[in-house]
């Protein structure tokens, strides 16, 4: 599809989904590789969940080709190797945790001692040991998320598709789930993470696709995807016209800091190289350098820039 020889966990080509007259997904193509953690980022209504539903067979595409672990989505043996946690984990409230996992384990084809063993293991993995006999109706949103993840991992899947994993979790839960996902990734599991939690994507994912209005805007490693000019904050004993002139000659732009008369904001392309040049310029102008530090844009700001850019 893209010339990469690595084996694909998910291949999407020319995928389009139209609900009546609404184009939810508009001719998108991407590939996710085996063993990779792939983030699918986008604002609400971008088409993320529609893509996930197509990958899990809940929704049929209008056009395009989708292959999961090398096979069409409808392939039953492939489904045996895929785990899925939906965005809103609504389960049968009358079931106890163990019964719920037993039912889903059986749907995966697990039986007997193996199933018993896997239920214990996944309950421990998601931090629900001791809750086996508790009814799902009494579970908190975070606990439902955890038990939902447990059912997705029952079959030791090659690929797990997670839709907004940490939306209902408290900070401890978020940390635990990130740890678990990192552990699963190290074991070789492919993880498709649909999220608008940029922090998750930054911590867990190897590559990210950004989707908006049904179209993929960018695909790449998070660091590369959100790379842009860096602003260096330069604090000296005194800012004068000579210093500003020389800094301007080595930077993309130079601005006085309105809050601090002794500071200058210098926009540069390459942070490391520019920092050394800035220090030399300050020294050459006879000024004392008090501090030199990059001002980092948050991931959120960069993400919004990309999304806003697509709208413009």
């Amino acid at each position, binding site marked *: 599809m893209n010339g990469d020889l690595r084996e694909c966990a998910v291949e999407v080509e020319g995928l389009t989904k139209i609900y009546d007259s609404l184009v939810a997904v508009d001719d998108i193509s991407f590939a996710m590789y085996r063993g990779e953690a792939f983030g699918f980022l986008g604002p609400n209504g971008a088409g993320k969940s529609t893509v996930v539903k197509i990958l899990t067979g*809940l929704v*049929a595409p209008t056009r395009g080709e989708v292959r999961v672990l090398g096979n069409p989505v409808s392939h039953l043996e492939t489904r045996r190797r895929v785990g899925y946690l939906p965005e809103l984990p609504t389960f049968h409230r009358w079931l106890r945790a163990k019964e719920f996992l037993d039912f889903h384990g059986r749907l995966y084809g697990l039986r007997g001692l193996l199933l018993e063993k896997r239920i214990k293991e996944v309950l421990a993995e998601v931090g629900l040991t001791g809750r086996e006999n508790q009814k799902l109706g009494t579970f908190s949103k975070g606990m439902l998320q955890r038990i939902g993840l447990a059912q997705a991992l029952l079959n030791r899947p090659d690929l797990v598709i997670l839709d907004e994993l940490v939306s209902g979790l408290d900070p401890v839960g978020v940390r635990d789930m990130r740890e678990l996902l990192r552990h699963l990734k190290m074991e070789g599991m492919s993880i498709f993470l649909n999220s608008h939690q940029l922090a998750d994507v930054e911590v867990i994912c190897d590559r990210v696709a950004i989707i908006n209005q049904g179209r993929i805007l960018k695909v790449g490693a998070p660091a590369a995807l959100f790379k842009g000019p860096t602003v260096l904050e330069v604090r000296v004993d005194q800012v004068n016209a000579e210093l500003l002139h020389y800094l301007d000659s080595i930077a993309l732009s130079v601005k006085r800091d309105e809050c601090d008369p002794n500071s200058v904001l210098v926009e540069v392309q390459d942070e490391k190289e520019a920092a050394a040049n800035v220090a030399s310029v300050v020294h050459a102008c006879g000024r004392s350098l008090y501090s030199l530090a990059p001002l980092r844009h948050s991931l959120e700001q960069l993400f919004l820039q990309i999304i806003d850019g697509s709208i413009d």
Partner: protein
Amino acid sequence: MGLLLITRFTLQEAIRRRLFLVIVVLTALLLVLFMLLFSAALQVDLRANSNVNPQLELLASGIILTLPTMWVVYLQCSIMTIFLTVGMISSEVEAGTFSVIVPKPLRRVEIVLGKWLGYALILSVYTALLFFCYTGIIYWKTGYWSTQALGALGMLELAVLALMGFTTLGSTLVPTMVNGAIVLILFVGAPISSTVSSVINLITTAQGVVPQQSDTLQNITTVVNLIMPPDALWHGAAYYLLPTAALDFLPTQGYSAGILDIPFISPQPISIPLLIWVAFYCVVLPVLAVWHFHYRDL
């Protein structure tokens, strides 16, 4: 295998939900109430007709009371069918519980047929239990047992399956509330044409005129029975609940069997073409439901 898992899950769900417990308890209470009322009514009847052979009087009471009692059984089973199955698929879709089941390694046909089979088992057993409990009480108290009781039970079971076929298809097509409204209106509306037909029949018989069916009325009744067959099946069941001797006896006394063509009763069994249609209906509607659910976005 997936089909049996879904069936087992459906049975488990039905048993574990409080609704089922309420139904079982209320049904048992109704049975006890019926037994007490029936006993009291028989004692009053025997006292009022002390000059008649008590055995014959009891038997006559048994025959007369079997039909309304079984009509209540038919109504109870039909309402249960509507309540339990009207959201068979749609309620799961609306609640979002299918989103973790459908992506599992099983076909959608297994989900629909598994649920259908689960409810079919529950409702068939419920109908049979109710039928035998009520007819058993009548037999115990009066000694009357229709020789064609199993035929009547078969008709009632078919009525439940036909109704379920309708609700199954509806639950894959429309939301639960809409499906409930459609099936309830059709179920209540279906007996209207047969009732009107019976009333006209009664009036003409009372006037000494040979009853003649209006073509329009007949056509409407036929169409309604084709769309919603349970009412026709109840009439078939009612025929089997009557003693065959009574049906044979009427013509010898100069009465047409048509005098029994009143609401709730039928002087003839269900026609073979209609029976074939019902069998077709019970099979085709769930198959259509499977077909539609297979292509439905969730």
